[in-house]
């Protein structure tokens, strides 16, 4: 996912002014940390409200008579059954049921949907969606928006003071509060929070208001990663990818039951096959013993030294106070309590399979 920094965020000047340290991610120069540092930024988000610039992510509007049909073909999703304002986690799958991207789809109206895609896949997602759309009567429009996330238990109160009421939304619902705006109650931290896509001029005004509230702090990509890891959420390109199907990734819950057998989305046949056969390995949470982090790429071995899996994300969890990781283990042993060993620079670090999330989700459910 890391690449050469080629693109600057529309609000880059604000991040520079805030003292951000930048680094490349998915073709963008992204704020990694601000002067308080990853630890304080992480903890502040869990206690108050963290403001993230996620404008590297892409919003697509899908509109037209066949919009629901297109999304039900492109994703394992019954888009026609979504109520207006409902959001769902879903995927683009390839013909082998590998995950091309994970997405949030929100129904905006009878014939309109918003699709939120990952930065690293934005170009291929657009090409894929347009190719599938050729069979349908609808349009796919990539939107030019600043995309902000405000996350944490005080996010709603901070937005309220800034003049944005959120009471109409519960977790995984979205709406268009103003012309050109899209706001959903969702996020990537495990906390209550919102993601807001809006035009740049409006975004500058909103950021000014949000930061004038001392409950709000800019939070960089480093803390975004530790927050999502504690919350057990996957990073595409690292924890899931075109080689991983939803069963193996322990994400089958995101595929409606009726579609697992009868669906006609791209990848449906292959997914039925995986469900029938069972996956050979499974994504799990991993808790290393002691204080030493176990990181992406580390091999997992059993007591006898046999290869049994690999770590796909790992680091330190500031809120839980211990190292946290996730990865894949052979099916028979992929259950909480199993002890394996991670190879870290030649040393074997004991690691226990741990239920996900590490940090309980605190979403505002309806």
């Amino acid at each position, binding site marked *: 996912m890391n690449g050469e920094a080629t693109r600057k965020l529309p609000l880059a000047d604000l991040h520079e002014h805030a003292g951000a340290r930048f680094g490349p991610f998915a073709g963008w120069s992204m704020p*990694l940390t601000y002067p308080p540092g*990853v630890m304080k930024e992480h903890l502040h988000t869990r206690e108050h409200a963290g403001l993230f610039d996620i404008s590297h992510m892409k919003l697509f509007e899908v509109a037209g008579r066949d919009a629901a049909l297109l999304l039900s073909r492109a994703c394992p999703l019954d888009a026609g059954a979504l109520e207006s304002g409902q959001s769902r986690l879903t995927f683009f799958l390839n013909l082998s049921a590998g995950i091309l991207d994970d997405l949030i789809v929100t129904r905006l109206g009878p014939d309109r949907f918003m699709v939120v895609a990952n930065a690293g896949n934005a170009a291929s997602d657009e090409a894929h969606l347009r190719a599938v759309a050729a069979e349908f009567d609808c349009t796919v429009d990539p939107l030019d928006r600043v995309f902000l996330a405000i996350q944490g238990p005080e996010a709603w109160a901070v937005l309220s003071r800034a003049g944005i009421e959120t009471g109409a939304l519960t977790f995984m619902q979205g709406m268009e509060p103003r012309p050109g705006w899209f706001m959903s109650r969702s996020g990537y931290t495990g906390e209550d929070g919102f993601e807001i896509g809006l035009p740049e001029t409006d975004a500058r005004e909103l950021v000014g208001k949000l930061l004038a509230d001392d409950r709000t702090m800019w939070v960089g990509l480093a803390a975004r990663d530790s927050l999502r890891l504690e919350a057990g959420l996957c990073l595409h390109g690292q924890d899931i990818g075109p080689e991983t199907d939803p069963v193996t990734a322990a994400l089958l819950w995101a595929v409606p039951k009726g579609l697992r057998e009868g669906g006609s989305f791209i990848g449906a046949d292959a997914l039925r096959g995986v469900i029938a056969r069972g996956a050979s390995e499974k994504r799990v949470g991993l808790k290393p013993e002691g204080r030493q982090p176990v*990181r992406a790429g580390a091999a997992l071995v059993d007591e006898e030294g046999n290869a049994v899996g690999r770590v796909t994300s790992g680091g330190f969890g500031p809120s839980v106070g211990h190292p946290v990781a996730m990865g894949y283990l052979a099916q028979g042993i992929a259950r909480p309590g199993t002890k394996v060993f991670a190879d870290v620079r030649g040393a074997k670090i004991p690691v226990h399979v741990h239920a996900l999330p590490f940090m309980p989700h605190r979403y505002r459910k309806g």
Partner: protein
Amino acid sequence: MADVYFTEDHEWLRVEGGVATVGITDYAQEQLGDLVFVELPEAGRKVAKGDVAVVVESVKAASDVYAPADGEIVEANGALGADPALVNSAAMGEGWLWKMKLADESQLVGLMDEAAYKTHIG
């Protein structure tokens, strides 16, 4: 009075009686961010200049710290086991990493003094 030297890899050495106390500079700890773990060396381990002596782990990444000279580790900073963030709060003091008996003090020639290091990091 101890002599303090700096390396291009952002380490400092305080040398007294042939023993160097080694740490990373304030500039280095700022670049790394909040440290959560320090993999310390065993006393008695012999290191050559350029060997990885210590690995410091931030929330996000692991980084190597190299032996700035040949010698033998005589002590590691045990306090970092419980509080690795000492390296962030006191990089040049309580956050030292290890002490080593230098095999050849002539290897210190060519290292920077504080003024030269400040110029080096701009």
